[in-house]
């Protein structure tokens, strides 16, 4: 019996969210006197796989013949690994692939799934309870999983893994799996460079207060100084000032970075729903009555056109000195 963790790999790299999922799996394994087996695929170096031991993996199964990620192929691979390892707990990251694979596995084997878990589960005998965000982050719910086999997907950036010196053993895992029926015809690169928003630890975001797309330079400069991703409010993406994939909020994407800096965003409840998981929120707004200040840790009542460049300079000065 083991805890099985699916680790996504893109471009030959195991993602940060997967490190968190492995560490999370290790916390569960420690409570149940079992070990963590990681399942991955693609062209990942042995060296990188052995190092997953640092996060708590004992063994890594890799299927290098799967090059193109396809949800049907990968879900068959996961099901084979669940069998091979007699896994009782299966952990995914709550990211695009993890969401789909967890749902398919739950339906396939009739095992209870808590998608987007944010806490290490409490385990009592054969029952497990775990928390997740509900109502767009406006509340939490504690779920009990009633089935013998349990599936969890971990919301990225919910815990901070600590590392050890351990290394994992690596095994090839090559069961027969079907080819998927959906084919990727092409991947069109987006213009935007830099940090992908959903994984970013630091985010600089701006809204209508910036008055027009031509003014985004000062947002980008602060983001560059910090090594942050950029984001925007809904009106800004609706008016096509910024691309849709930068829209955070209830109907855009939800993020939970360590630092969220919002300039010229009033803080409508729908926007807050997408960012209220952030550890620290800084709000910059000319209107001291803006509702966003109520959700902020630090507030600056002032004009973004003056405050942002000043903050950029202060960050550069700090980086140079540290």
């Amino acid at each position, binding site marked *: 019996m083991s805890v099985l963790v699916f680790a996504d790999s893109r471009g030959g790299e195991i993602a940060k969210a997967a490190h968190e999922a492995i560490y999370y799996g290790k916390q569960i394994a420690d409570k149940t006197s079992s070990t963590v087996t990681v399942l991955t695929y693609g062209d990942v170096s042995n060296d990188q796989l052995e190092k997953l031991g640092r996060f708590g993996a004992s063994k890594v199964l890799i299927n290098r013949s799967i090059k193109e990620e396809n949800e049907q192929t990968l879900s068959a691979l996961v099901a084979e690994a669940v069998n091979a390892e007699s896994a009782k707990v299966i952990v995914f990251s709550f990211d695009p692939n993890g969401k789909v694979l967890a749902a398919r596995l739950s339906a396939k084997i009739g095992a209870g799934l808590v998608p987007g878990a944010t806490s290490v589960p409490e385990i009592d005998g054969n029952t497990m309870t775990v928390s997740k965000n509900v109502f767009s982050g406006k509340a*939490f*719910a504690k779920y009990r999983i009633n089935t013998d086999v349990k599936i969890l997907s971990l919301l990225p950036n919910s815990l901070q893994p600590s590392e050890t010196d351990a290394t994992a053993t690596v095994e090839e895992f090559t069961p027969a799996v079907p080819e998927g029926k*959906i084919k990727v*015809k092409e991947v069109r690169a987006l213009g935007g460079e830099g940090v992908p928003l959903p994984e970013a630890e630091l985010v600089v975001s701006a809204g209508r207060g910036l008055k027009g797309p031509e003014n985004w330079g000062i947002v980008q400069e602060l983001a560059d100084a910090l090594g942050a991703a950029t984001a925007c409010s809904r009106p800004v993406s609706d008016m096509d000032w910024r691309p849709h994939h930068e829209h955070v909020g209830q109907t855009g994407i939800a993020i939970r970075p360590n*630092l969220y800096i919002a300039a010229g965003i009033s803080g409508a*409840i729908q926007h807050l729903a997408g960012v209220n998981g952030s550890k620290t929120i800084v709000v910059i707004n000319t209107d001291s009555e803006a509702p966003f200040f109520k959700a902020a*840790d630090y*507030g600056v009542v002032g*004009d973004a056109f003056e405050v942002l460049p000043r903050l950029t300079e202060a960050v550069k000065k700090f980086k140079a000195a540290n």
Partner: protein
Amino acid sequence: MKILVGISKAPDTTTKISFTDSNTKFNEDKVQFIVNPYDEWYALVRGLELKEKNGGSVTTITVGGSDHDPIIRKALAIGADDAVRINAEPTDGYFVAKQIAEYAKDQGFDLVLVGKETINYGGSQVGGMLAEMLDMPFVSVASKLEIEGSKATLERDAQGGIEVLEGELPMVISCAKGMAEQRIPNMRGIMAARSKLLNIVEPTDSPALTEVVEYSLPSDKGDVKLIDPENMDELVRLLHNEAKVI
């Protein structure tokens, strides 16, 4: 082309959330309910556009009690041809998927569309579960969908780019922003919705794989600390020393 669209009920996005029964139930008192925005704006409207272009029908399906009828009538007013309501409380994602799959399995749908997630439970799970139960391929968080004969071409955001995907119908698709624009029902649609068929179906047995044992609300944030707009060095110092985020 036969299109099935999953429609679920969600509290209006401005709802203040509270709980009853020792924090085990969502307090629905005075809550305005809407069609889950992803289901309505993207899945339903794109389904209607495809029907208008290629012919066929759009059926909505909802798991819920009679309290769901107003949002189902709204979907009919926007333009769905008919609706199915599985008469049971939607307890978790698996239960909902199971009920929909049980109904849909012999109906010959070419396309099953759902929103990418609900704004109340946000599990993003029903689409993938449906695909598994119906033995269909699944494309999640699609932002574009075109149908040519039995071939579907889709786009979705992927890390660092946009993926263009292709596959044969039938398939299950979860829909995200970009798929379509919100439609406001007009008076004719609202009148017509009253006489459209709402087929009420009794549920199939399905065990509760998971259940909520307790809800809670986040603790209030302390007061915001205001920083002098002239002194951004101070903000950087606090972010480093106090918040420890840079």
